């Protein structure tokens, strides 16, 4: 299925970045409406984080392993038959295909593109459509990484979210991982993060992580929720069914005698070469730590919510705003259209709300793109109502599981805030004393966020330490790219012109 149908170069109707619930649903909706769709994902398998699953060979060895939502995933995956699925494609930049860029292309390619696509005329009429489409710059392959460039008239950003950790002494020890990372190991490789695991942080996501670990054979030595869960009423008023789901997880944990405590957090991790135990503290209202005790463990899965991955949207200048958890989200209308004509966003980039919301937004976005490109699409008010209800639930959950600034009290001067650049808290304080007043100026003076992860891990912490909410990401290069690939060396010129599957291009390496 991947790569089938559209071997040649050309401008597609729709490029979707991210093949999780939102991207898959959008691809199905758009291709059912007759659009020529390319679906791109960095991972080797479809599904994103929520539908993450082990390869069939590995699954066969673990017949009993539960794969949540797998039926839904299979139905979506099977409906992707007409879609050009590009897995293992890491998108490092997206740009508008304006006239300036059109000139850069060989005339042959542009001609072929127009010939392939009967709907292309509309895009060449600047009065009707300001953007001449979009260019999606990818890196494909693993060992023989190569540059692949895709073109589409419309672009959907469905790039999900990543974990939001908080720093604390010892969080850089091997054995400490994010809750999402622990779940990815379990879902994708069927490997529990450790023999004895502590799960800590805040939010409902901790429960499936802990239950999954326990059921996969790990001893879960405790689940520590930093909030009290007192603010849950508004969320459950919107989706009472979620109460049963939460209760179900708690029952599964209780059945395995997993201790569960609210208003507690892991405030320090200990160990020499790797994690041996953690300090758990009772938290006051604003998360100032109180009474402490230690728990032996060889793995700690910790997560304080999620950060929507929106740098591709900000590369294109899409408007953003602070969401309920302080993270920047892409502003969209009822059809998931962003402020930039032709660019859509669905799923966590519009606000973290989970897989159900992401999928609903994906359906809406796919249909909206089709309608905007002149395909007949019947209105679906029920879908919009479902989206509104799920989004309201997502916002209410964020309100119920806030991050309180008391975590700053867990830090010591030598606690690393940025692990990539090894920036301790003392250097952040020094930058603030020197006149830094926001995350960017702290970064300029003390280097947190300048390393490999580009601030994805420490961004929230640095912004809060500087006294602001997270600013919109500025990442012109969304994924590391080799200078040789960026240069588009002459012997690979064909590939950089959009002939993604051109075997001659691969040989040229």
């Amino acid at each position, binding site marked *: 299925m991947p790569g089938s149908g559209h071997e040649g170069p050309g401008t597609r109707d729709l490029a979707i970045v991210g093949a999780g619930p939102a991207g898959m649903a959008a691809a199905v909706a758009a291709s059912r409406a007759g659009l020529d769709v390319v679906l791109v994902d960095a991972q080797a398998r479809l599904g994103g984080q929520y539908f993450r699953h082990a390869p069939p060979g590995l699954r066969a060895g673990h017949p009993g392993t539960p794969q949540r939502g797998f039926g839904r995933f299979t139905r979506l995956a099977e409906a992707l038959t007409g879609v050009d699925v590009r897995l293992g494609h890491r998108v490092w930049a997206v*740009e508008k295909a304006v006239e300036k860029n059109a000139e850069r292309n060989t005339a042959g390619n542009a001609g072929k593109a127009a010939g392939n696509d009967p709907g292309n005329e509309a895009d060449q009429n600047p009065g009707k459509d300001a953007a001449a489409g979009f260019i999606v710059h990818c890196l494909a392959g693993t060992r023989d990484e190569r540059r692949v460039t895709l073109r589409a008239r419309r672009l959907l950003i469905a790039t999900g979210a990543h974990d939001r950790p908080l720093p604390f002494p010892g969080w850089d020890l091997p054995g400490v991982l994010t809750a999402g990372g622990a779940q990815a190991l379990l879902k994708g490789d069927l490997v529990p993060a450790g023999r004895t695991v502590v799960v800590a942080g805040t939010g409902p996501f901790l429960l499936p992580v802990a239950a999954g670990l326990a059921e996969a054979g790990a001893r879960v030595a405790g689940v520590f929720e930093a909030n009290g869960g007192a603010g849950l009423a508004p969320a459950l008023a919107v989706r009472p069914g979620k109460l049963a789901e939460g209760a179900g997880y708690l029952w599964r944990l209780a059945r395995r005698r997993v201790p569960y405590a609210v208003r507690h957090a892991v405030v320090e991790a200990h160990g020499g070469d790797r994690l041996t135990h953690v300090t758990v503290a009772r938290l006051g209202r604003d998360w100032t730590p109180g009474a402490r005790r230690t728990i032996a463990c060889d793995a700690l899965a910790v997560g304080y919510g999620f950060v929507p991955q929106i740098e591709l949207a900000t590369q294109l200048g899409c408007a953003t705003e602070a969401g309920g958890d302080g993270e920047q989200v892409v502003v969209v209308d009822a059809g998931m259209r962003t402020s930039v004509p032709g660019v859509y966003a669905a799923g966590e980039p519009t606000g973290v709300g989970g897989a159900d919301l992401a999928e609903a937004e994906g359906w809406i976005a796919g249909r909206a793109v089709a309608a905007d490109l002149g395909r007949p699409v019947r209105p679906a008010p029920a879908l919009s109502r479902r989206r509104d209800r799920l989004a309201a639930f997502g916002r209410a959950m964020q309100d119920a599981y806030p991050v309180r600034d008391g975590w700053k009290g867990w830090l010591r001067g030598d606690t690393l805030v940025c692990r990539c650049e090894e920036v301790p808290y003392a250097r952040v304080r020094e930058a603030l004393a020197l006149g830094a007043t926001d995350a*960017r100026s702290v970064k300029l003076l003390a280097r947190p966020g300048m390393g490999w992860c580009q601030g994805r891990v420490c961004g929230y912490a640095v912004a809060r330490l500087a006294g602001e909410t997270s600013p919109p990401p500025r990442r012109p290069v969304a994924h590391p790219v080799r200078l040789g690939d*960026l240069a588009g060396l002459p012997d690979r010129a064909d590939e950089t012109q959009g002939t993604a599957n051109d075997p001659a291009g691969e040989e040229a390496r």
Partner: protein
Amino acid sequence: MTDVVVVGAGVVGAACAYYAARAGLSVTVLDRGPVAAGTTGAGEGNILVSDKEPGPELELALLSARLWRELAGLGGFEYEAKGGLVVAETSEVLGSLADLAVAQAGAGVEHVPVAAGELPGYEPDLTPDLAGGVYYPQDSQVQPMLAAARLLSGAPGAVLRTGVEVTGLLRDGDRVTGVRTNEGDIPAGAVVNAAGTWSGEVAALAGLDLPILPRRGFILVTEPLGGRLGPPLIRHKVYTAAYVTDVASDSEGLETSAVIEGTPSGTVLIGASRERVGFDRTTSIPVLEALARQAVALFPGLAARRVIRAYCGFRPYCPDHLPVIGADPRAPGLYHACGHEGAGIGLAPATGHLVAGLLAGAAPTLDLSPFRPERFAA
């Protein structure tokens, strides 16, 4: 009342504040943003004498290079007297490069001609396809943001107020007697306009026309090299002779020339592009591609290294490529220290030193007439 208000907490404002405070003046530095967050925070930290033709800017650069060596003693920021290596692709370009070096020598610039066969001794990983080059030992590099911040914190008694935006100037007739800000009026004996690319806006508050325009530049940053990956790939500041002509060009269109250097943190910085596109921050992939192409052409080994980030900034550009330094006769009490284009880091100490001299009533040690603010008036 404070003796001096400096508008702008970039490296030029910091140097003005530093030398003014050292001269015994009370100084308040204002910035609408944080410290060093404008063009200072988007540069490479060049301290170059090699790219300047003999003339007033080169004199400023030589004074500045000497002052940076002194300032490095303050500590707390990286300063590397690494030297610059200018390379030429053809013997014709090498000829004009050599001529320039000889002319610069007359002004006090040290240089060493480097034959093609000697280039590997300076930079082992340079492409062999070069005609030769010139080595400039006085070229150096500084971490500009920390340098600006340390100059401010090292300025005796100087007060830094971030998040304070100047919205007007206090006047007594023509005379400028302080600034109006979003946090109230600040009377001052003198006001220094060190607002970089935004200095034209400050001048406009006095009803003056200062034609300073943004000239955008992108920089690519690689993953850290060196350390466990081996010795630093690039030892000096290396650039092609085309950079000198690009710097002096008046073109509005895109110009790129390779300027490549390593930093103590192991990253390699790759510039330089010049475009006049206003304050547009939209990433231009073609510019990034051009920078990468030129970098790989000079250092083929860089092809396998990954770019982990890119950023852009806006050089404060004057039509005649000279900075604006000195008292403004049209508005007594107002001094300018701006318009340094891409050389602001390098020229900051000399600028600050000269402006502080004027503020303290001393005779300037350098002829300031080429930099006079009123030179653009029709």
